[in-house]
């Protein structure tokens, strides 16, 4: 996993609540046995006018020009601004894979669904929670200023405009922050406690032999 320290990027606003993982990456693309290549099909049903299937040449498909990701001013965006309960629904990690593969490095929303939120951290994608009023302000500023960018500093836990005029703090679990800052592999970290796991397991299986 790539470490996440400081990231400055263009912001794209997705102004709807309860965006589910079926919308983020539709089911037909879940048939892949790989982790990569999902970016062109991110928000597939909203992004294209035709029906997408695996194996299509996405560059030749008709775009829905009304969908915000297709607006010229938001090309190259790497920060997705969203509404509450983003990522609800299924546990498919293909959702954060698709967001990352598209080029997103951070998300900003008032809240996320639990499994999706957790899956983001495993892939170096930072899901930032801000207050509803702060998110409202960022939606207004993104609309008002073409080329609106934000700088996210994970060490300092801040989201700020590039000129520093507006800055919000955000919370994150210390252990998640540590793993993201250093790009650490969770499995490697857990296996440092292999002895403790073995001891726990031996006792548990002895006490519950039906397991």
């Amino acid at each position, binding site marked *: 996993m790539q470490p996440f320290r400081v990231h400055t990027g263009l912001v794209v606003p997705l102004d709807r609540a309860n965006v589910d993982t079926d919308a983020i990456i539709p089911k037909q693309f879940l048939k892949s046995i790989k982790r990569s290549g999902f970016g062109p099909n991110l928000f597939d049903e909203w992004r294209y006018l035709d029906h997408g299937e*695996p194996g299509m040449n996405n560059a030749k498909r008709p775009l829905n020009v009304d969908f915000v990701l297709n607006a010229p001013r938001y090309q190259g965006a790497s920060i997705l601004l969203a509404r509450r309960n983003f990522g609800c*629904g*299924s546990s498919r*990690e293909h959702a954060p894979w698709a967001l990352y593969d598209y080029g997103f490095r951070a998300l900003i929303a008032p*809240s996320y669904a639990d499994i999706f939120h957790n899956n983001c951290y495993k892939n170096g994608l930072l899901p930032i929670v801000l207050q509803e009023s702060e998110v409202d302000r960022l939606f207004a500023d993104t609309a008002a200023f073409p080329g609106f960018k934000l700088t996210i500093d994970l060490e300092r836990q801040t989201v700020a405009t590039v000129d520093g005029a507006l800055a919000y703090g955000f919370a994150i679990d210390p252990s998640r922050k540590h793993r993201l800052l250093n790009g650490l592999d969770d499995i490697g970290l857990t296996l440092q406690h292999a002895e403790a796991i073995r001891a726990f397991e031996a006792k548990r299986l002895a006490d519950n032999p039906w397991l």
Partner: protein
Amino acid sequence: MARTLYDKLWDSHVVREEPDGTALLYIDRHLVHEVTSPQAYEGLKLAGRKPWRVASVVATADHNTPTKDWDKGIADPISRTQVETLDANIREFGAKAYFPFLDRRQGIVHVIGPEQGATLPGMTVVCGDSHTSTHGAFAALAFGIGTSEVEHVLATQCLMMKKARSMLVRCDGRLPAGVTSKDLVLAVIGKIGTAGGTGYAIEFGGDAVRALSMEARMTMCNMAIEAGARSGLVGVDERTLDYVRGRTFAPTGERWDRAEAQWRTLVSDPDAVFDATVVIDAATLAPQVTWGTSPEMVTSVEGCVPDPEKERDSTRRDDMVRALAYMGLVPNTPMTAVHIDKVFIGSCTNSRIEDLRAAAAVARGRRVARNVKLAMVVPGSGLVKKQAEAEGLDAIFRDAGFEWREPGCSMCLAMNDDRLEPGERCASTSNRNFEGRQGAGGRTHLVSPAMAAAAAIAGHFVDVRRLH
């Protein structure tokens, strides 16, 4: 100190804890299916790792498998590759049990876990699927995980996580006749919203839940995730023990006695304190029907399509307008005036024997309405199918004009050939009415099995209690 059921399950699985509360939680049962596991096994291979405890893994292929013409195999080459990849991974890495495509015990992973006794009270149960919450009906701490965590559990038998808050959803009274646990859980989601349970483990309690069968409790816990909660729970009682006793992987003899004694403690202490409590009166509920593109967009079958004009919150109003446009519905239309094109009876929410019996009781001696293009019944597993056929339910369905299919996830998420075409409207016993969930442009209304069968007969939604 008095503890909730969730506290007890959590405490008994913590291997170690960091100062910030992040714990290593030991996992007893790992359910594996073909969609969310290939990348995890690949990661294991690339790192030269082996599964920590093969005996914890129970696997099946369910999401991609076809529901008819099994003798022809899986036609879609991409789906076939995914199923064959699971075959190969289980061959290479092993499992306690594997129910591959075509096995007579194959089925939806959340149906076969309990059916085989592979889900037992007191366990931690995980699967790369959000509806793993289903298994909480057995007082097991069960929740969905992503593929990175599937790999993490395979490699370490543990997960790194923080404890959730606890919520009691207390369902008072008794459900009236014709009103089911599906209606009850939809009403709960309507009340607290799809994010109402985010960050919580929900325990379903109260007289109405105590009176439910295990199948009905599974339906409720299954949909805890639609209220935002990764886990749903119901405490152990006689019904739990009666269901588990005698199943393939359940303990027997002296081990059963020991297990039973432990399992009986798996209830919240009487004076346990929950972080939140929601009370719902089950006795006054009517059958529920969703009208929108989120499970919280739900009303009684006696109600009407809501009017966004009356919603004050602007984000919510925009959501409603968008949902009604997608669903092709006009505000203030009675739900019973909404006509349907297809009916799907199945999914990990409602494909167990009791669900099929309830639907068959409505279908018996009647005919599917002419405007309904397809009404399909997809049993949750090969064993459910066999049981239903032994009871003659397949004949009832066929005589009424329903298609009787092979087990699998089918049109709940439409990864196989079972799907809605753009604009088609479906009465579905599944769990999600999201845009495109059952097929691009498809319009899903979530209902109970009896309500789905009634809609198939009438050709539109109808109060199953008034069907003559």
